[in-house]
């Protein structure tokens, strides 16, 4: 039996490409999951054709009042009663130049609930509101039921 040379010890270089691939996909998954896990109040926004961009609503110090379909009010993601709303908003706008309050109301929230919240905010001295909605493209989407 001829002496075969021993096979060299197996050394495996890690294939970098599949590694990078899998890592990037995991990264994407976490980037998509994380915003959804934040405490986000579920509000179905009204659909409108002519909203304007309101980038100030994204700011840390933006005053956002959310009104859900069953009429619960939230101030910056924290539940609040309409009576407390005036005092809290007054605190938040004291010393600010831009006294705009953003209202993120569910499209099916009762207008009466929205009015109560708006009145409370107005009592704190606010005049300018930004009603947050989503933008739709096709005009045929608005259901105009007589």
């Amino acid at each position: 039996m001829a002496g075969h040379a021993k096979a060299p010890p197996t050394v495996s270089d890690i294939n970098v490409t599949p590694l990078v691939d899998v890592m990037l996909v995991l990264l994407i998954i976490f980037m998509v999951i994380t915003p959804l896990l934040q405490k986000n109040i579920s509000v179905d926004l009204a659909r409108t054709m002519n909203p304007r961009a309101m980038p100030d609503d994204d700011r840390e110090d933006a005053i956002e009042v959310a009104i859900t379909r069953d009429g619960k009010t939230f101030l910056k993601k924290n539940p609040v009663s309409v009576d407390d709303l005036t005092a809290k908003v007054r605190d938040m706008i004291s010393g600010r130049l831009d006294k705009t309050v953003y209202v993120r109301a569910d499209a099916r929230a009762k207008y009466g609930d929205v009015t109560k919240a708006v009145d409370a905010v107005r009592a704190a001295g606010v005049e300018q509101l930004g009603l947050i909605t989503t933008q739709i493209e096709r005009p045929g989407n608005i259901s105009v039921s007589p």
Partner: protein
Amino acid sequence: MAMAVGGKKGAMGDINVTPLIDVLLVLIIIFMVITPRIPHGLDALVPQPNKDKQPDESVLNRTIVVTMDAQRQVAINQQPVDIRGLGDKLIDIFKTRNDRIIFIKGDPTLTFGDIAQIIDIAKGAGIDKIGLMTAAVEAGK
């Protein structure tokens, strides 16, 4: 020591395209996910009470108030209007006016979406200042 090395040394061989496209597509997806979504909305006003004397008659007579009652019937200053014609009617009214201001009053049992629709139509008709006629606004006026 024999050169028991497999594979070519020296210049790189042909690049494998498939993993390249794979990684590039994944990077594209990442940048698509990163793009910030800017909130959009409609401006509305809730005027503070007028501390001075009452506004004079001419101002009160000229205000355009769009109302929607519980049956979702729209009216401009008490005149019923079909909602489909609301936009054109508003454009008509404001052809001769400089002050593009309207007030919107809605029945409390309506949904916010109904009122948002009216505000939307008004914005489409070119009205910049839309006031919400809430109970407090009406009382303080």
